[in-house]
């Protein structure tokens, strides 16, 4: 007999060792997320994928599916709070969606649309963050980094390079680069590395690509992130 969990009243089968996120994605159920990517070890830091499991809040990307679990994902409360957490990410950094090259292709922006986020709600921190344009092909705009660590993981796990790391504590957390100068240009990152392409926001951009695809024809201009994520990630989860 195959084991099942219930998400929002819907019975979903899973195989041993799967997380709630994996089981959900395979079954075509979207749970909002930013730091999670099926190709990498789950991180559990953005907290957008928080679901209620038997009455307790857990991150779906790290929590193992267990037979008979009652999972709630689409309650009004969870959706409201996910919106608030997304707003936190917006006020922590400096995000100017209309002026960002990533607009329309940005997961942060798309999640915000999906959660019906209409304003930033919280007062801004107006953090003083820099742009690192020292690399010939790749640009880091720290204003848009949300610390999902996907570039850290991609560089280490896929590229075998360890170009990025997270440093600092609390609200002073920041992304650092593994080179003597701390600049990307002095690191061994290459434009073809996975780490250069995995950023869910506009923090890491490839140079000289700007507006190659016009605004209006970009991924999330036509599809909601739930649709896109399920299309792309079901395969990743072996669905």
């Amino acid at each position, binding site marked *: 007999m195959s084991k099942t969990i219930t998400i929002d009243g819907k019975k979903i089968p899973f195989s041993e060792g799967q997380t709630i996120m994996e089981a959900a994605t395979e079954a075509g159920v979207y749970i909002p997320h930013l730091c999670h990517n099926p190709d990498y070890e789950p991180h559990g830091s*953005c907290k957008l994928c928080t679901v209620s499991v038997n009455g307790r809040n857990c991150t779906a990307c790290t*929590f193992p599916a267990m037979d008979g679990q009652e999972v709630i994902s689409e309650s009004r409360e969870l959706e409201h709070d996910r919106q608030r957490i997304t707003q936190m990410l917006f006020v922590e950094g400096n995000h100017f969606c209309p002026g960002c090259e990533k607009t329309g292709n940005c997961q942060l922006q798309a999640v915000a649309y999906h959660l019906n986020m209409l304003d930033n709600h919280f007062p801004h921190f107006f953090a003083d963050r820099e742009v690192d344009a020292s690399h010939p092909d790749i640009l880091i705009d720290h204003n848009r980094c949300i610390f999902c660590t996907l570039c850290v993981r991609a560089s280490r796990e896929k590229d075998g390079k360890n170009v990025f790391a997270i440093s600092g504590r609390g609200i002073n957390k920041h992304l650092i680069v593994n080179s003597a100068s701390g600049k990307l240009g002095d690191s061994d990152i290459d434009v073809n590395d996975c780490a250069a392409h995995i950023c869910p926001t506009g923090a890491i951009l490839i140079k000289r690509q700007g507006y190659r695809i016009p605004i209006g024809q970009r991924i999330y201009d036509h599809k909601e992130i739930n649709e896109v994520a399920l299309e792309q990630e079901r395969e990743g989860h072996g669905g």
Partner: protein
Amino acid sequence: MKQFLDQVLESAERQSTRLMQILRAVQDEYHYIPEQAIDYLAEQLNIARTQIISVAEFYSFFHLQPQGHYEILISDSITDLMLGKANIMAYLSKALRVEVGAVREDGIVSLNNTSCTGMCDQGPAGLVNGYAITKLDRPKIDRMAELIDNQVPLADWPAEFFQVDDNIRKPGLLLQQEIDQGAGLRQAFARGLQETLAEIDKSGLRGRGGAGFNTAMKWRFCAEEQSDRHYVVCNADEGEPGTFKDRVLLNSYADQVFEGMTLCAAIIGAEQGYLYLRGEYRHLEQQLRDLLQQRREAGLLGDNILGQGLNFDIEICMGAGAYICGEESALIESLEGKRGIPRNRPPYPVSHGYLNKPTVVNNVETFMAAAAISANGGDWFKGAGTEKSAGSKILSISGDCALPGIYEYPFGTTIAQILHDCGAVDVLGVQIGGPSGTFISKHELERKLAFEDLATGGSFIILNNSRNLFAMVKNFTHFFAHESCGFCTPCRVGTSLLKNQLDKVLDGHGSAGDVVALEELCQLVKNYSHCGLGQTAANPILTTLQRYPDLYQNQLKEISYEPGFDLDAALETARRMAHRDDAAAHLTQVED
């Protein structure tokens, strides 16, 4: 430098897991972590330089910029503030001719704040090059300034500056009956290890760190994990402001704590243990090392303990100023030479702990109690306390009372009784369990110390009626924002938002909606944070908001909305540039 670093690397056996120890040595020598050291250590340890930078930037006691040869940090705990810390700090700054947060021009001395140093019963306190200095007053500061100006080595400073008193006021079950060295282990071997675990189970002992997990169950789970190695870790990183009992236990009862760790090792099959000692307790480090050596010589540590074929040893790992490392999985990360970020759970440390091997992490008091239970039997312990909270609890009491210090009570004792014993009068309320705990008002003093009612890691901070409750709430809220590790969004951003929002209300810029927004934010941080820090960071606001809503209301302006920034002040630059200061060049903040 290379020669020095090689020496440090040798003593750390070139293990990157000992990065904390290595960086502490570098910080001691150069008063910061120099760039050349980072490069050399990275190369020699075969780790990325970013790992060293990120560790250095995570812990408060490491610096990438030079600090003074005398690094002075003053405790910013609410208890130190209540004992006149603000005046002391101002006087220090003047006497030493250095601004708070700065290094004096000649590089000799630097001065800054730090989180609670665990000297709440003898503050205002601080640290000089990591060594605790207590009961600061003006004469002492004048003398310090002289010593510093003459560059007298710290070792030659008057010993009484560094005197740390135990202040044990009321010993109970554990404190008045220390077991003889080796008694717990001998009993365990005579009785049988499984039978000893059964005794601990029978005793009803629950972890004394605050969460209260059944100790015997934890040890059994860990013992049952199949692995080539098991570890025992003693969590001596008590960083909860107002808590200092572990300091006293490790000063005067460490033998029994080590005995408890060894007992645990025998039961779970561990050969290596670690005592993770908070950096603030550096003054205890050497005496603890000496004690470990003495136990080795007595056949109670090392190979073939008591001739029973048990091999086990204990190493001390020093923290470096991060409250979050009191969380057991963050502590394990720190032990591995990394930033103290709490791990995702499951898996739990009992199966995937230190180096991903099964690990028991227990509090100092828990190990101490376990050793006593082995020596005296489960019934002896079970005889005290309540049904769900067996035994006694050791408390750190500070704040407004005649006799601050260490008290031990059987569970079930009322708060009123405790306040009576320590000489607290005219009480406004008590912060129980530190900032992450609960503030109870004077109307709740019949409540009981127990997991069933008021569970606590052991900190009592007493406030009398002369105190401003908001000073405490503000201090705690700022503390959490400062100590958040930053891993998860709700805590990283949320604790800083809480701090700003609370300050807005307390500074008199709040209006009706602001308290509602504050409360909503509290719930969000509480419900969605990754670990205990974020889950409890809003408690100081929530518990006081619940008990004193009027106090908060009185802080508010009688308008419906007060903006987050001053519009008219923001125009100042424009007015200066336009050489205008007429009425039309000013804007009112809100339309009344």
